[in-house]
């Protein structure tokens, strides 16, 4: 910990783990609400949906637009 090299590599490890964590979240789709907000800023009208409303609308949307999952 004390040497600069060790603290540098620990920091790198932290950065790597952080990026991996963010990647996992993104692949699972957790940042879709942010994507919606970005869309709403440029295209939407009125107040944006709250997070809870958005996630409800998302499953309602999935109800009518099923996505396949492969073998």
């Amino acid at each position: 910990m004390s040497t600069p090299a060790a603290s540098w590599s620990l920091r790198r490890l932290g950065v790597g783990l952080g990026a991996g964590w963010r990647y996992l979240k993104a692949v699972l789709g957790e940042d879709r609400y942010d994507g919606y907000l970005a869309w709403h800023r440029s295209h939407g009208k009125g107040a944006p949906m709250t997070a809870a409303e958005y996630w409800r609308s998302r499953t309602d949307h999935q109800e009518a637009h099923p996505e396949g999952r492969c073998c």
Partner: protein
Amino acid sequence: MSESGTQTRELPSPTIAVEAQESEHRRWTPKKIIVWGAIGLLGAVAWAMIAIVRGESINAIWFVFAAVCSYLIAYRFYSKVIERFITKPDDRRATPAEYAANGQDFMPTDRRVLFGHHFAAIAGAGPLVGPVLAAQMGWLPGTVWIIVGVILAGAVQDYLVLFFSMRRKGRSLGQMARDELGRVGGTAAILATLLIMLIIVAILALVVVNALGESPWGVFSVAMTIPIALFMGCYLRFWRPGKVTEVSIIGFVLLLAAIIGGQFVSQSPVLSEVFTLDKLTIAWLIVVYGFIAAVLPVWLLLAPRDYLSTFMKIGTIVMLAVAIVISGLVGKAMINAPAISEFAGRDDGPVWSGPLFPFLFVTIACGALSGFHALIASGTTPKLVEKERQTRLIGYGGMLMESFVAIMALVAAFSIDRGIFFAMNSPASLTGGTPETAAAFVNGLGLTGVNVTPEMLTATAESVGEESVISRTGGAPTLALGLSQIMQQLTHSGLTAFWYHFAIMFEALFILTAVDAGTRVARFQLQESLGNFLPRFRDTSWKIGSWVCTAIMVLGWGAILVLGVTDPLGGINTFFPLFGIANQLLAAIALSVCLAIAAKGGVRRWLWIIAVPLTFTTVVTVTGSLYKIFSPVPGVGYFAQNAAFRKAIADGKESFGTAKTPEAMAAVVRNTAVQGTLSVVFVVLSVIVIAAAVVSVIKTLRGVSSPSSEEPITTSETFAPAGFLPTPREKDLLGEWESRAPEKLTAGGGH
């Protein structure tokens, strides 16, 4: 789009100039030459080790090197040729995610994230199971087909379907077929897609049934995934909306608890009794489950289960890759089996019957070429692509990843003893079901180096906490055993049973997710088709209509599943070829649609890139179907088998071959009739679609075809790099966008 009209400020370019792309791609710096030289050299050495040098045993690491180096070279060079001469992406054009953005299914997504997302949607239990069953023929034919097949066929199909669907606002394969091939070809394609989806769902479910039959531990831990998913659904709905990673981790921990709990269940005399179910009961439970899952609200079961499945998929595949590479590097993953097995030259293998050509190429479908991917690559993913040039990474690259999963499954299958492999994968009608009879049967096959004892079989079953491992067909238990042996070497030998059930659980999870989703997709397709005659059915929110259509679909695959489970000939060994043929026929349909579209798009000389895999898969599947329909060998031909059993019944025999009772004989007659009829229907429908595509191409070449149905061009107002890492020029342009119009860029993904 109203704001962009009033905007006067000039945006940076939405693309790198074509000449700059070319010069960047073609400039060979010394560093580039060294890197690609090393990749080529390592790949060549690995292939030499596999194909030529191989001694008594071979280190699994060579399979990893051969595969990965081949993929890198194919991606860098071959997919680039496809991009240059067939797809010709243009980043000045907006993608549907940009011009039709709606904050829901049309949403620009970071390319690296979409790569993971697409991979999780296409990969599942398929690439894990096929290579295991193909192990009957030895490891060389399977390895060559998985790697060469993905490069020239599977990844080409996925890339082209993704690209063409993206150019058509994410239209489905069926819709594209109707648009490009006309009424007859289009209708045949839609009907074939629907039937093929049913058979694929049925046979995937059969794999689960075979893995869970008479296994209280497995039944308990897989059953627990349902309450876990329901809990996750409520958690996301009522307590913490949108916290999908958090809930996935909670779900994962609960899954581990369920696996550990399964051990107690299997050891408790009372509970193990409750959870020991025969295969037929499990099949009926899955049918009932399939119906309920398809009519329950999405948020309650389907969505949370999908999160859990995606989380597990990425986690377990990374874990498997790390485990195989580490145990290969330390010399612990050694394969002691012949490269080409004794069965390669015969057509009477106990795991599945039929000669190597064509049946190896249908047994390994997912991982080399999977038509089912065309349903994902059209529809879901194209609505999320940010820039046209990224389709090469997502479509071609995503399929290369799946192929790598298949290679890992192959390695896992060969890490177990060959005698145990045949004892596990031969039907009970051959092994007799007891350690003594199974050992006698396997030793009697006359395979070199195989000498299995009843004690070995009993000890193997004990080590994984099962009553027996004999005739656990379907591939999943074999893969689980291989995986548990690799993992226990790296962790602790006491964990063998845990790893075995961990593997069974994730395979079942992937399959049940595919069953849920497949039933729903099929139901919507049926409603759409019925809507042409009875308009009321088009309304997908109409409860009765959706229940009726769901019931029809569930009964469709449920019937095939029950036939498979009760099949006196063993189920998997006669049904799995049907799965492979169905999947490859779907690939032939997808490639025909791509061929017609590419021809309309002006491609001429380079049409062979599509025509070659199309011809190959057509020859394979049609030959396979003809064998299944016309072969006089009862073990291979459905109708030959049917005739033999009907004759036996007419002769008044009480038992015949592996069917020991008159009822079993009647079951064989019924099953072979169904299988044979399905084979005929599939091949006829597919030949109609392929013929329609060829007619369309000829019309195009003579200049009399209708134009392709591409969406009109919209100018793109955003930019993102095409590959995983941005090139220097892409970095510069990205910097320009970040300083002048950062709000136009897709957030997230991290830089």
